[in-house]
């Protein structure tokens, strides 16, 4: 599904990501963890094309996407959420999902409708996505008026609206209480039920350990461990990285 080979990214003299290789298989939920500044968010940004990679290649379904601009990567089936919530706050909840239906494969409309109409079909599809994301009753509310947890859910709704194959979640549990984390965990599992593949960047171990199939651990931009949650918890290198040992 997602195949990352020897990618590297320097910011000035700092190696933010250094010779990183891992893969995510179809239908998997993979966690990407590491201490602050270890290059997790940079990796997500490299996969999305916010920055170009300096070295190595990123491919989705055996198609090299490392040279493509962001919007074309979206078209090839990648979508994401953001670490700091980035919604269009003055638009309503349904409009925030609507914006992601740029190329909606569910409908074949004439160009007039495509360009001017919010057709019924589209609204039904949006409703469906919002109900799935637990926001069915907030359809017409302003995105800026949602609670923090709901805004996170709306970001997730927007991310799945473009019908991606792979969803990148950038610290979705940041700032959540344990009830909200439990809810988020269920939502991530629901994504897999939909047939999606998930790459989860996260600090909240309570979530990571309970939802992922496999974990990749970064430290100083390098991969220091990879394996299932139980093995990672026992891994000496990982413990050192997190506890600050030599």
């Amino acid at each position, binding site marked *: 599904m997602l195949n990352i080979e020897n990618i590297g990214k320097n910011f000035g003299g700092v190696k933010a990501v250094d010779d990183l290789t891992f893969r995510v298989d179809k239908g998997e939920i993979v966690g990407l963890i590491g201490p602050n500044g270890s290059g997790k968010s940079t990796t997500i940004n490299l996969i*999305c*094309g*916010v920055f170009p990679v300096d070295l190595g290649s990123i491919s989705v379904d055996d198609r090299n996407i490392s040279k493509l*601009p*962001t*919007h074309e990567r*979206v*078209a090839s089936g990648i*979508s*994401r959420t*953001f670490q700091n919530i*980035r919604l*269009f706050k*003055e*638009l*309503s909840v349904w409009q925030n999902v609507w*914006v*992601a239906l*740029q*190329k909606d494969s569910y409908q074949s409309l004439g160009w007039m409708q*495509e*360009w*001017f109409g919010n057709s019924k079909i589209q609204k039904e599809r949006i409703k469906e996505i919002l109900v799935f994301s637990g926001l069915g009753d907030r359809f*017409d509310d*302003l995105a800026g008026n949602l609670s923090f947890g709901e805004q996170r859910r709306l970001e997730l709704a*927007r991310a799945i*609206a*473009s019908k991606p194959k792979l969803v990148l979640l950038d610290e979705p549990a940041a700032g959540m209480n344990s009830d909200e984390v439990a809810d988020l965990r269920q939502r991530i599992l629901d994504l897999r039920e939909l047939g999606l593949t998930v790459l989860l960047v996260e600090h909240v171990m309570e979530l990571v350990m309970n939802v992922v199939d496999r974990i990749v651990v970064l430290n100083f931009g390098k991969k220091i461990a990879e394996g299932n949650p139980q093995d990672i918890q026992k891994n000496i290198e990982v413990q050192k990285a997190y506890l600050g040992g030599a």
Partner: protein
Amino acid sequence: MSLYLVTILTNMTLISFIAISAYLILIVGEVSFGQQAFFGIGAYVTATSTALLGLDLVIALFFAFIVSASFALVLSFLTVRLSGLYFAVASLCFAELLRLSLYKVEYTVETNSGTIGPNGPEGFQNIRWIFENNISPENFLIIALSSLLALILFLIFMESSKLFKNARLVGKDQIVAQSIGIKPFVYRVSFITLAGGVAGFGGGLFALFNTYIEPSMFGIMLGVHGLAYSIIGGLGYPLGPLLGVFIDIGLLESVRFLSEYRMILFGGLVAAILIIFPEGIISPRLVSRIKRNLVKKTNA
């Protein structure tokens, strides 16, 4: 209507074109300090087409639109990788470059009514279209106002199109826009080009109305006023720039009795407006609230 009022209204109409062109670029999230140059190019093209080539008004204004839009297209390609402050500076440089080149454009023809054609720093004199065609100031105001009205109606219609909606998303958050599959390049290029064309069209009308143009008329203050009008008026709806023009020029004229103190009052008032309405009067927030209320009412 008194000639004074007609002239004021015509000036307001003409400056509205530059305000709208600034507005179009603000929508895609950039600030242009260069719209005055496209206004100037439109003015020169129209002057040349009517006075030198003897073309019709419609064709002359069409040329003004096309030529200034082409220059704007060049600007948009040159600034593909620039945004924010850097785009603003680049647009100003581009505008000054064009304006200063006009000082070197000399091509004059002697006629019965005097010298016509661009004549370097002395400008383009004797643009006699309104006299030749017996257009009264009132009629000219009607021509200008109806073109402006047509433009506004077009923009209001286009507000509900995907082109404009996506352009606003690009303006608000380019990274999110990209990550939901929007190609920002397309929207930037088309809006900068359209904005150039709109400014050029307004400049064309200005040349005909003023009967005389020179490069120094198209300096940065013209562009800054255009920007200020659209920022005061708000970016929520195409009527915003018009409201800005109305407040600004209307107010300036109505307090003429204060003579030299009126600019002080005016500056204070603009500051006050922006303190009370930080996003302009017709802000995107206000528009979205009104729309939502309308939808609720129709549903109820």
